[in-house]
């Protein structure tokens, strides 16, 4: 029987963690872009657009991420579209992240006092000009802490993609466990790696929140 040193376990987990990081980055960046488009739709003046965006958000917030992964991975092949675990994971996490970010950001936009809309309206700005120059620069300040905070959820969300066979940190841990029969050690290390990824994020979210709150100054 082959024996595995602790370093064998850790090094393999670390290698797999690269995929967790990469998937998180893809989901977060892609989700940010899609989320921004959703945000525009969600607060637009066209009722149909608003409605469509809110249905999208409710669907993605109202179903488990795991189901969304299953539907993407097993459902699309039924329609004749072959998807790799990597593609299914990337797309699903992106869409899921977008739904949450759009809703977080909508709250931030709505936190901007109505007077800012009225003043910029009375200066003849169009809806997009108002958003671009007046509303979003202010909303972004409020949005930074909850957005960074949500990125933790994205990192942890990637663990679910192990179930459709995407070899990231959790999947790697399962594979290693099957070889070493040391589930507690292996999953312990895996959890530690997740914590090392997530803790700085939630900590910085707290620090940012305090900073942006205390510095009531807007510059």
């Amino acid at each position, binding site marked *: 029987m082959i024996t595995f040193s602790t370093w064998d376990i850790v090094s393999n987990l670390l290698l797999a963690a690269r995929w967790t990081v990469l998937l998180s980055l893809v989901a977060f960046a892609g989700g940010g872009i899609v989320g921004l488009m959703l945000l525009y739709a969600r607060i637009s003046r066209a009722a149909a657009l608003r409605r469509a965006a809110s249905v999208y958000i409710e669907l993605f917030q109202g179903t488990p991420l795991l189901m969304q992964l299953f539907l993407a991975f097993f459902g699309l092949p039924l329609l004749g579209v072959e998807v790799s675990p990597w593609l299914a994971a990337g797309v699903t996490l992106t869409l899921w992240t977008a739904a949450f970010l759009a809703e977080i950001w909508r709250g931030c936009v709505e936190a901007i006092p109505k007077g800012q809309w009225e*003043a910029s*309206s009375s200066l*003849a700005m*169009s809806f997009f000009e108002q958003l671009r120059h007046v509303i979003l620069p202010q909303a972004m300040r409020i949005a930074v802490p909850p957005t960074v905070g949500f990125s933790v959820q994205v990192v942890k969300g990637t663990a679910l993609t192990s179930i459709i066979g995407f070899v990231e940190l959790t999947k790697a841990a399962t594979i290693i466990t099957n070889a070493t029969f040391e589930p507690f050690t292996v999953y312990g290390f895996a959890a530690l790696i997740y914590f090392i990824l997530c803790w700085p994020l939630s900590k910085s979210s707290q620090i940012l929140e305090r900073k942006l709150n205390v510095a009531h100054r807007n510059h």
Partner: protein
Amino acid sequence: MSLIEITEVRKRFGENEVLKGINLDVEPGEVIAIIGKSGSGKSTLLRCINGLETIDDGSISVAGAQLLPDELHLRALRLKVGMIFQGFNLFPHLSAGRNVMLSPMVVKKVSAREAEVEARARLEQVGLGHKFDAYPDQLSGGQQQRVAIARALAMKPLALLCDEITSALDPELVNEVLNVVGKLADEGMTLLMVTHEMRFAREVCDRVVFMHLGRVHEIGPPEEVFAHPKTPELQQFLGMT
């Protein structure tokens, strides 16, 4: 032709009709004070004139620009009439100078340099030339309101709507704002102001409009309206009964 033409304007909030057929024509250069109890519809009327509220009936036009609910018409209308608010509504993330520069650059595509020259001139005009780089939270209420006036002026409007612009100010700061408005009036700016400053209305305005229950209840030159109010409602409002 009048600069601002308000014809049979009606406005409802749900069941509550707040404007019940308003008619008012404002000539170029006229200074008009709108007075009345809260809830009489005076602020709503002002907000209708530049399209911050939609109207249910009637028509409003400013120098030929009709109030219609699409963005193109609203933009054309708002290029002709500026507005100043009770709460200043300066953009807190921009310096005073940038507040004034923003709309000319964004809406009128004026170059940054031109906009800055204009902004410095407008801030100078309201006595705040030295505050170009100050942020709104570094300014007093009176200074913020004067920046707001400069910001509106930078768009070169034909008329200014002032919605209780001194009501949120500490008493000692009211005059610095009123002085600026008085100067604008002297220079021939058309002004429509909802105000509680009766002394100012009496001294500066050409006409006073007394609104009551969504109607123009009494209108006339200040001497007449203040000294010889005809209706019991206005007499009561002025504390004469």
